[in-house]
C-alpha cells in the first residue's frame, strides 16, 4: 500500500490539501474524481515530487519511483512519435517501443511529428511516453481527454494489466465505472478518503 499521511498544501492563502490522508491500492486502476480545482492534480504532483507539502508525508513510494502524465501533453514538436518513446526508454528497452505504441493504438505513426497528430492521438502519445518510464506507480492526469470512448475502454483494460498500479484523474463516467477503485473527492480543500 502507498499512504499519503496528513498532507497539507497551499498556494498563498488558498489551502488545497488540508491534512489530507489517502491509501492507494497496490494493484489495478484507481480513479480519482471530484469537482475542478478540488486538488486532484496537486495530489498527483505531490506524489510525483513536484510539489512539496507544507505538512505530512508519502509512505511506500518515493517520487523517483513514479511516472506522471501531465494534464497537458507536453510533447516536443521536434521529436517524432517513436523518438518520444526512445527518449524516455533506457537504450536496452528500445525494443519495447512498438508494444507501447500498440498499447495506446498508435501503430504506423512512428515517424509522425506531434503537429500532424490529432488531439486524441497527442494525448495517447503522452500516455505512451509516461508508460515508457519504469515506475512503481503511474500517475495519470486526465489521460483520455479527446480520446474516443471505445478506445478509452480498450486502453484502460491494458492499463489494468500493467505490473504497477495506476492512479488516474478523470471526470468521464465510463472511465470511473471501468476503474477498479473510485475515490470521490470533495474540496477544496481536499478531505481524507477512507477505502
Amino acid at each position, binding site marked *: 500500500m502507498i499512504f499519503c499521511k496528513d498532507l497539507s498544501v497551499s498556494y498563498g492563502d488558498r489551502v488545497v490539501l488540508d491534512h489530507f490522508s489517502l491509501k492507494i491500492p497496490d494493484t489495478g486502476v484507481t480513479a480519482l474524481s471530484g469537482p475542478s480545482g478540488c486538488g486532484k492534480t496537486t495530489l498527483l504532483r505531490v506524489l*510525483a515530487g513536484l510539489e512539496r507539502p507544507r505538512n505530512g508525508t508519502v509512505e511506500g513510494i518515493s517520487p*523517483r519511483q513514479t511516472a*506522471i502524465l501531465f494534464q497537458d501533453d*507536453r510533447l*516536443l514538436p*521536434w521529436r517524432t512519435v517513436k523518438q518520444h518513446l526512445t*527518449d524516455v526508454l533506457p537504450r536496452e528497452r528500445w525494443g519495447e517501443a512498438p508494444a507501447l505504441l500498440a498499447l495506446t493504438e498508435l501503430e504506423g505513426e512512428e515517424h509522425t*511529428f506531434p*503537429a500532424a497528430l490529432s488531439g486524441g492521438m497527442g494525448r495517447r502519445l503522452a500516455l505512451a511516453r509516461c508508460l515508457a518510464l519504469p515506475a512503481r506507480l503511474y500517475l495519470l492526469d486526465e489521460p483520455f481527454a479527446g480520446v474516443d470512448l471505445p478506445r478509452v475502454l480498450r486502453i484502460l483494460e491494458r492499463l489494468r494489466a500493467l505490473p504497477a498500479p495506476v492512479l488516474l484523474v478523470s471526470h468521464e463516467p465510463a472511465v470511473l465505472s471501468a476503474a477498479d477503485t473510485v475515490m470521490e473527492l470533495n474540496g477544496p480543500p481536499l478531505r481524507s478518503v477512507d477505502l
Partner: protein
Amino acid sequence: MGWTKPLKKLLYALPAPAFWLGVWQLCAFWVDRRVGGRGNELQMPYPISVWNALVAMVGTGDFWSTVLASLGRIAMGLGWGILLGAVLAVLTCSSSWCDRLLSPAVRVIRAAPVASFILLVLLWAGRGRTPAIISALMVLPVVWDNLSRGIQAVDPRLLEMAKCYRFSRWKTAVLVSLPALRPYILTALSTAAGLAWKSGVAAEVLCLPKPSLGQRIYYTKYYLEIPELFAWTAVTVALSMALERLLRACLARWGRGWGR
C-alpha cells in the same frame, strides 16, 4: 509543367531589383545631365559602368584571392563571435553572479563605436587579425542577446517534463532547450552574418591587410575609381547574403518536418 515553377519564382523575385536598378539608372542619368563629363563617373556611375568594372575584376586571379582572404577572416570572426556569444548567453542565464559580472561588459561592447574598437585592436593584435576580431566583437552581443532571450523563453513546462522523465542535463539541453532556441538562433545568425561583413570590411579599410576587400575599397577611394568602389561593395553585399543564406539553409534542414 516543370519550368512554370522556376519561371513563377523568377517573375516574383525580379520586379523589386528591376525597380531599384531603374531608380539607380535614373539617378545616374540625372547626375550626368547636371554634372557631365567624368563628374558623373565620380559621383554616380551608371549601372552598366559598374557591371563592366565587375566583369573586369572577376576575370583576374587577384579577385578570387582577395575574396577568399576576406571570406576566411570574416567567417572566422563570425564563428568565434557565435561561439563566444552562445557561451556567454548560457553563463549569464545559468548564474545571476555571471549575469551581474558579464552583462555590463557585453552591453559596453554593443554600445561602443566600432571605429574605436578597430583602432584599439589594431594596436593590440596587428593588422592581420583585426578584421576577424572586430567581426567577432560585433557578432558576440547580437548572439548573446538573442540566445539569452531564447533561453529565458524555453517553456518551463517542457523543462519540468524533462526533469520528471529523468532526462540528464545534456539530454535536456539537446532535446528540449536547443530546438526551442531555433527561431532565436535563426534571427541571431541572420543579423550576425550581415554585421560580421559590415564590421569586418570596415576594419579591413582601416587596417589594410593584404589581400582584402577593404584594401581594394580603400584604393578605389584613393584613386577615385568609383565604379570599382560600387563593384567591390556589390561583391561584399553578395558574399554577405550568400553566407546568410547558407546559414539559414543549414537551420532549415535542422527544422524540417517539425511544423507538419
